[in-house]
């Protein structure tokens, strides 16, 4: 049969973000797939080189739109490593709190996101409403809902008061109560089972060869999580599990995210109980306009909702970074994975593949 070229991009309801794939299909089967990034390209890495150390905090949340906090955290982490800055304990707890809240919000979005490719529109309606509850928390803590610009080199920008902690507790409890409904409506739904089970499989070998991390790798049975393997902030003081699956398909990958939400809630509860009193920020010398970071280079990495996420920062001792390299968590599956893994997928499953693999456009386009 004749091969047809198809454009699978933001025009498709199952495609998240401004990213597209050029598909060559034979009938309903994909024969060739070529990722086509660039629609979101702003040159983040280059832009960072001419911005002040602090100013980058306002720029980098855009590297990952649904989970902006980890950009701030991982950038600050790298900067602190170069500067040999040991941030206050309370700031570390607050960072963990922010990152786990972010993880919940982005997993909610992923769970909701499955509604597009499968047509189960209850999922996005619910998940996005619950995500908004997390955004309410962010608004209370940082003053903004999506781009928080809250974690800065040296700690965090503002302290969190008791009232806000109670608010977080209540919100988290509400979400926890609703998780049972999610399971029933989404994960026990026969439609979801039919569409996701066995769809878009990923072998352990593939995952390791491509460099996939996060839920993708864990769904193949590999228990790899940066939080456990290379504990940062105070993750080594907190008790939580890493859910793994034995066989990776679209369903297990999505279900792992659901289980991770539960773990995040567990972490947040511990943080609220354990957080010590004290300072939340160390200041660098001088006004922010004159901040300088020692000469040196460092790699900061954290576990994002999609896997290992890192910033490699090089400083020449000046007021701006000399070079910053972003390791987007979905970079392996988003670029190489699409070319290597997408062929032989059926056309209607392409959206599911891209969604459950966690392809995040701005990370690839950074």
């Amino acid at each position, binding site marked *: 049969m004749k091969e047809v070229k198809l454009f699978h991009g933001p025009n498709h309801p199952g495609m998240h973000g401004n990213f597209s794939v050029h598909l060559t299909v034979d009938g309903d089967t994909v024969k060739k797939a070529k990722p086509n990034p660039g629609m979101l390209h702003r040159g983040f890495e280059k832009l960072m080189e001419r*911005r*002040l150390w*602090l*100013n*980058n*905090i*306002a*720029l980098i949340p855009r590297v990952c739109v649904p989970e902006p906090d980890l950009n701030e955290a991982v950038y600050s982490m790298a900067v602190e490593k170069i500067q040999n800055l040991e941030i206050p304990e309370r700031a570390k707890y607050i960072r963990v709190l922010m990152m786990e809240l972010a993880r919940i919000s982005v997993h909610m979005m992923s769970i909701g996101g499955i509604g597009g490719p499968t047509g189960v529109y*209850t999922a996005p309606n619910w998940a996005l*409403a619950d995500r*908004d509850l997390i955004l*309410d928390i962010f*608004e*209370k*803590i*940082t*003053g*903004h809902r999506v*781009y928080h*610009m809250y974690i800065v080199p040296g700690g965090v*920008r*503002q*302290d969190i008061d008791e009232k806000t902690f109670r608010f977080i507790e209540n919100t988290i409890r509400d979400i926890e109560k609703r998780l049972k*409904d999610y*399971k*029933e*409506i989404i*994960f*026990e*739904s*026969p*439609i*979801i*089972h*039919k569409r996701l089970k066995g769809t878009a499989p990923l072998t352990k070998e593939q995952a390791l060869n491509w460099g996939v991390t996060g839920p993708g790798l864990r769904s193949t049975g590999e228990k790899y999580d940066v939080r456990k393997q290379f504990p940062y902030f105070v993750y080594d003081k907190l008790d939580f599990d890493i*859910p*793994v*699956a*034995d066989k990776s398909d679209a*369903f*297990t990958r999505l*279900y*792992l995210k659901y*289980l991770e939400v539960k773990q995040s809630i567990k972490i947040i509860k511990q943080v609220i109980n354990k957080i010590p009193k004290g300072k*939340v*920020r160390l*200041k660098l*010398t*001088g*006004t*922010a*306009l*004159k901040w*300088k970071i020692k000469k040196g280079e460092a790699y900061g990495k954290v576990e994002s909702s999609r896997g290992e996420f890192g910033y490699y920062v090089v400083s020449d001792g000046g007021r701006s970074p000399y070079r910053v390299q972003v390791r987007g968590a979905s970079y392996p599956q988003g670029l190489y994975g699409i070319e290597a893994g997408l062929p032989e997928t059926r056309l209607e499953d392409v959206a599911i593949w891209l969604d459950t693999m966690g392809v995040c456009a701005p990370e690839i386009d950074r």
Partner: protein
Amino acid sequence: MKEPKANFFSPFKGIKYMVKKPVTIRVPKETREAAGRYRGFHTNDWEDCIGCGTCADICPTDAINMEKVPEYDSPEGEKDERPVIDYGRCCFCGFCIDICTTGSLKMSKDYIYINENPDTFLYIPEEQGINKNFPEEGYQRNEITDLLDLERISMRHVKSSKRKDSFLEYVKGFSKEEAKREASRCVECGICTDRCPAHMDIPEYINSIWDDDLKEGTKWLYETNPLPNVCGRVCTHKCEEVCAISHRGEPIAIRWLKRYIVDNTPEKDYEEVVLSNVSKKSKGSIGIVGAGPSGLTAAYYLRTLGYNVDIYEEKEYAGGVMRYGIPKYRLPDKALDKDIKFIKKIGVNIITNTRVGKDIEFSDLENKYDAVYISTGFMEPRYLKIEGSDHKDVIAAMDFLPKVRDFARNEGKIPDVYKKIVVIGGGDVAYDVGRSAARIQMIKYGKIDVTLTALENYEDLPASEDEIIEGREEGLEMYPSSGPVKILIEKNKIKGLKTAECISLFDDNGNFKPELNHDNTTFHKGTQVYISIGQAPNYDYLPENLKEKLNFVGPKIETDENGQTNIDWLFAGGDIVNGPDIINGVADGHNSAKGIDKLLNNNQ
């Protein structure tokens, strides 16, 4: 992981949500209030805003621009600009709020703005907010979020107990670490540059300290001031009074940073910078009368422009008030010598021990030079006319201070200061007199007894704060709001000074006319009275025909903006034009040098 099983009935459990309330709200019927820290549209209090532009500097998205306010004549310490925010670019990070030097820029909880005209999104923040509804304040700066460093690095001094019997310099100067930390507090707004009479490039040279490039710093200093060693120690630092940081914190120690640069630049680099400024082309020759701050500055810049310069100085050493007025503990000779050394090094000829009008006629200067610059300063004492003020133990500041300098330089005998003295005056010079006399008392008698009386009340004392504090530390007693009435003399010896309470200093028209309440008098015991109520010029060296042509305003000579007097070839500057202040002299010297160059170049 245990996977959930598919269940046909499970999805129907969602039906219970049909009876629950929707999670959405109906905008605009319902409104949602923003959280307490919400970073919404900006407001700016124009009364407090000084237009420093720090918000524009920190803005990560270049959304803030400083624009000139039309027909606004900004007062000193304020720029005539205000921030304009482009809401097409703003990312509401709030860094502008965190770094605002005055705290005038704020963020409100307002987050909805609708307008069909896109130009209105270019918004000049005012107190009423973008929706003109005086919105509630949202995100607020606090000490954690603050992006300024408000605390000044304190200068190390020799303790008052150790310094009061010595004329050695007691300000120790910054170490490298301290200087860098102090320099890092600067926000580079440039309000100081506007205020400085010499318009020194303060942000630039402070920056060079932070960047560890002192040679660059010296370069910036010599752009506008060839006396950085002097000004780094005794400048009246008007710049610090207007420092943007001073609105919420302590101003940057600009003067001490200047001193740090000159004290720590390697001699080789220093020389290279100074010598590289000189243009080799000779265009003409200029005569300068008086080797004070202004004369030396004019000489330096004229020389760099290629002119041959001769300075005539009546005293043995060049320096004027810097050599014979300011006490050595504030300005040691070696600092002044360094500045003069480099001025001489570029080829300025200083002829000392030569008084114009006596050793050389003024008309000779007119014939010999293409232009003449006079900067003879206010070196004459001003006397007070009250009962008993003609007694021999009533001493004027400008008679006393040169003797102290001579003594401190080991070139004169110890001035005859009595055990108990009274100083009339509350300015820097009065403190110089008091503190110098105290040192001599300490050396002579081992005990300090100095009383100062000033017309002004304590808050308005003209002396700088440092002088007042350090004077107090050294044991000087200050009596503000005291107008001198009479010096009591018995058996030809002074017994003390009688003062009356000063009620007001100026009359209704703003003229200086102190009013005394003679019912409330105080008697200050003392056997010597020093008078430090200002200085005066001496124009004896000017020929009568010139004096007639010149325009005098009080004791000062009137010049145009180039320093040129009514006589084409005669320029004037320094105290005799702008009143006593070293930095004014420097400014006038530089200005006149440019003026002279303009004049001579046009003639050619």
